[in-house]
């Protein structure tokens, strides 16, 4: 029987009312800004004008930016796959002590704010860096940071499927005369292809729209479209050109996503998956032990190294080790014309994150209720619509806010735009966390509550809400972490000082001369990293299902 039958079924009006909140949120803060970018780029003077387009397409500088964006993303993706696939294999096929913890730790770089990643690599290979080699301003630093940042995507996506792949298939190929290598390329690799394609698409998307890392490590010479949009909009104040660049980037993103989903549909192979515990074994031969040790060591160096160096640099003052840079955060730091107030930034970040989490929960829970209750085309369409902001780059969202929402909103209230932009990015995380649990709430329980006298709204409060509370907490944790680390959109929307966030403050410190400012940037990055990592570990804890029916 249909899941939503009977008296507990929400009337179409109730569903419409529930859908109204996410729809108006998306309409006002996503569709309207994106439409405004379209208008700014194509109709700069009120009527259609191809001049900005022509300007972009004839400017060899801008074309160079587009080309750089494309090839650095391609190279980053290939490099990440090459570096992370052995890790995925080791995690999928071998059992070793501390595996769970290591897997969680390997995820930390992925959730780090991009500003922190950029800063960590500056600490490693920048001016005054630990290695003593200057690589900032070169493609090498960018590629290294991209591999560091996206390693977990491959580890989780490919390793996730690999750990369930039946080893008997490879054994069968071997018994049929295939060498180890041929068994891998002819059997395992084709079966892993959907996961590899998914991971590659995600990595490509992230590096294609890379902003914070490139802004910090790319120096004046290297820029992606994302960085260029920011420069044109914020520094050169050429909104039409920024809009055209944003449109080109959106087209690129759409192309990537379309190719990805087409490929996923075609390459989906039904396969018999095995529980991960049955697949993984302890390393037995000497070769296996060498492989596991080698991979884990290189992982520790690659993923742990930059973080360790960041912490080391933040403690390494002019007069030896100590908390000098941390203490300096609390002191007045009005050096020069640019005002950076670290304490205020921390306060801002915390309150923005709280407000953004609140908005994301309100919008996300309403949306999840609609998606979970209704099945079929409409629900899928709604789901996709909600995911769109995630595929749209952060700078584009910020830029959209800038052109669409700046004028009509009173400047004193403009701070609300920052948590709104954060919530836009965070809503998909809340929806993803809550929908599966909501769907799993058995219709019987709702009916039981109704029979016992609970009116529909009461059913929701008494049955659905308590059961999805845990998933809601996970969603809230994600929203909070996303908001804390958000840099791209904030950098365009935030006014100096009054609404500065921690990532912005770090970037400002990096842009100012002097060891003290550099040290402060390191110290703030460490604090931000600690807070983000803590919230991610809390999320992981909440995720483990407790005792009970599910």
């Amino acid at each position, binding site marked *: *029987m249909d*899941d939503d*039958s*009977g*008296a*507990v079924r929400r009337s179409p009006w109730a569903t419409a009312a529930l859908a109204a909140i996410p729809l108006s949120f998306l309409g006002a803060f996503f569709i309207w800004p994106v439409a405004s970018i379209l208008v700014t780029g194509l109709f700069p003077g009120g009527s259609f004008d191809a001049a900005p387009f022509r300007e972009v397409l004839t400017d060899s500088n801008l074309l160079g930016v587009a080309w750089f964006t494309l090839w650095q993303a391609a190279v980053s993706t290939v490099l990440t796959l090459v570096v992370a696939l052995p890790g995925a294999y080791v995690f999928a096929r071998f059992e070793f002590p501390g595996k769970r913890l290591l897997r969680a730790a390997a995820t930390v770089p992925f959730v780090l704010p991009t500003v922190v990643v950029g800063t960590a690599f500056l600490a490693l290979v920048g001016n005054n860096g630990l290695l003593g080699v200057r690589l900032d301003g070169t493609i090498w630093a960018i590629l290294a940071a991209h591999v560091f940042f996206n390693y977990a995507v491959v580890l989780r996506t490919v390793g996730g499927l690999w750990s369930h792949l039946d080893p008997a298939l490879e054994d069968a190929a071997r018994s049929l005369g295939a060498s180890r290598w041929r068994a891998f390329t002819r059997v395992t690799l084709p079966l892993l292809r959907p996961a590899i394609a998914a991971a590659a698409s995600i990595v490509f998307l992230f590096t294609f729209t890379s902003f914070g890392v490139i802004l910090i490590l790319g120096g004046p010479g290297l820029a992606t479209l994302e960085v260029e949009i920011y420069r044109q909009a914020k520094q050169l104040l050429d909104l039409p050109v920024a809009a055209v660049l944003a449109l080109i980037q959106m087209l690129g993103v759409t192309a990537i996503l379309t190719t990805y989903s087409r490929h996923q549909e075609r390459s989906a192979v039904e396969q018999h998956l095995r529980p991960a515990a049955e697949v993984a074994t302890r390393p037995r031969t000497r070769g296996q032990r060498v492989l596991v040790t080698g991979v884990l060591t290189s992982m520790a160096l690659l993923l742990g190294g930059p973080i360790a160096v960041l912490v080391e640099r933040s403690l390494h003052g002019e007069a030896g080790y100590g908390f000098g840079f941390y203490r300096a955060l609390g002191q007045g730091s009005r050096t020069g014309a640019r005002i950076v107030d670290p304490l205020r930034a921390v306060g801002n970040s915390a309150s923005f994150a709280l407000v953004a989490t609140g908005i994301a929960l309100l919008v996300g829970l309403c949306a999840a209720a609609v998606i979970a209750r209704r099945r079929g085309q409409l629900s899928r369409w709604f789901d996709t619509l909600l995911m769109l902001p995630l595929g749209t780059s952060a700078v584009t969202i910020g830029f959209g806010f800038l052109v669409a929402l700046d004028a009509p909103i009173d400047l004193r209230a403009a701070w609300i735009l920052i948590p709104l932009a954060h919530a836009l990015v965070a809503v998909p995380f809340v929806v993803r966390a809550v929908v599966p649990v909501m769907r799993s709430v*058995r*219709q*019987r*329980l709702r*009916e*039981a*509550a*109704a*029979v*016992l*006298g*609970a*009116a*529909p709204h*009461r*059913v929701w409060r*008494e*049955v659905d809400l*308590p*059961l999805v509370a845990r998933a809601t907490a996970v969603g809230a944790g994600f929203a909070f972490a996303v908001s804390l680390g958000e840099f791209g959109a904030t950098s365009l929307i935030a006014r100096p000082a009054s609404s500065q966030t921690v990532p912005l403050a770090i970037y400002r410190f990096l842009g100012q001369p002097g060891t003290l400012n550099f040290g402060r940037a390191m110290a703030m990055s460490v604090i931000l990293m600690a807070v983000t990592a803590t919230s991610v570990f809390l999320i992981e804890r909440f995720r483990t299902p407790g*005792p*009970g*029916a*599910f």
Partner: protein
Amino acid sequence: MLAVLDVTVRFSETSALDAVSFSVADGEVLAVLGPSGSGKTTLLRAVAGLQPLDSGRITWDGGDLSGVPTHRRNFGLMFQDFALFPHLDVAGNVAFGLRMQGVPPKERRRTTTEALERVELPGFENRTIATLSGGEAQRVALARALAPGPRMLLLDEPLGSLDRALRERLSVELRTLLERLQITALYVTHDQTEAFTLADRVAVLNRGSILQIGTAEGVWSQPASETVARFLGLRNLLPGSIEGSWAATAIGAVPAPRGANDGPARLIVRPEAFSIDDRGTIEGVVRSRLFRGTDYLVEIEAGGTVIEALLRRAPEPGSKVRLAVEPGGVSALAAPAVAGGANVSSGPAPPPEPRAG
């Protein structure tokens, strides 16, 4: 009094319920007996207000319930899988309905304790749902349904998921409880023993239609149709001709049902009515035998017809036996017109039994 009047429910073109009518008097327990897919769960959901009707009416004391949503009907419903709230403890589950009624906490606690004592689970208040055994969960579900004082109790195969020994014990307990509470109840099951144990009256439902409705003894001794007889497990259906106190059938002469008129009739001979008797009227050959513990289920071919008999001892397959039939073990199928208001229309193929969740 509950009245179900010409109720029809369709699932994508097929009827789950086809113009079903019956009533349940105050304090009466009516069992709806039917195979899976017969529409009995749909019927219960319709009465509870969980399933919208395509046509027909359901009334309580003459008042139409069609505009009354589930949560205002005040019917207690016990689900087959119990549907206990996993996020609440036992007390939270039992007190749920009282809380919805706005009963103050103190009274709520007292009523909850009473309800748990009534189902013989005193002191279970703080137990979590996950720690309950099947029988305990069943009692908690019953306590939860009873605690708010419903005007009627709806039970959907409440013993269906329990093992057989527990099921038999609990069905007797349930009967005692229902009698003591004098509560009106509609009980849905596919198990005839359960239906006959618990109910004052039994309705046999098949393919969305009620085939027969009557007292437990009446339905058992006078099946209205072949379908009912087969559903009750009576397979010895023999066309015959009644003359006085005997009836001639293909297997031989059997005692005529009491009060039957002379002439052609369709007769049912109960398997337990046979006994091995040298002076018996039936001669046959044992085809197979199945030891069942207390007795044997024996297939015997007599006069070209295979019959089933329950015998204390059974000869080897292939051996000849002579059987006698005790007089009370034969009944005649009632003609459809006199089958106690039964509805013998055969609807289209039934849809799968709805099982939400």
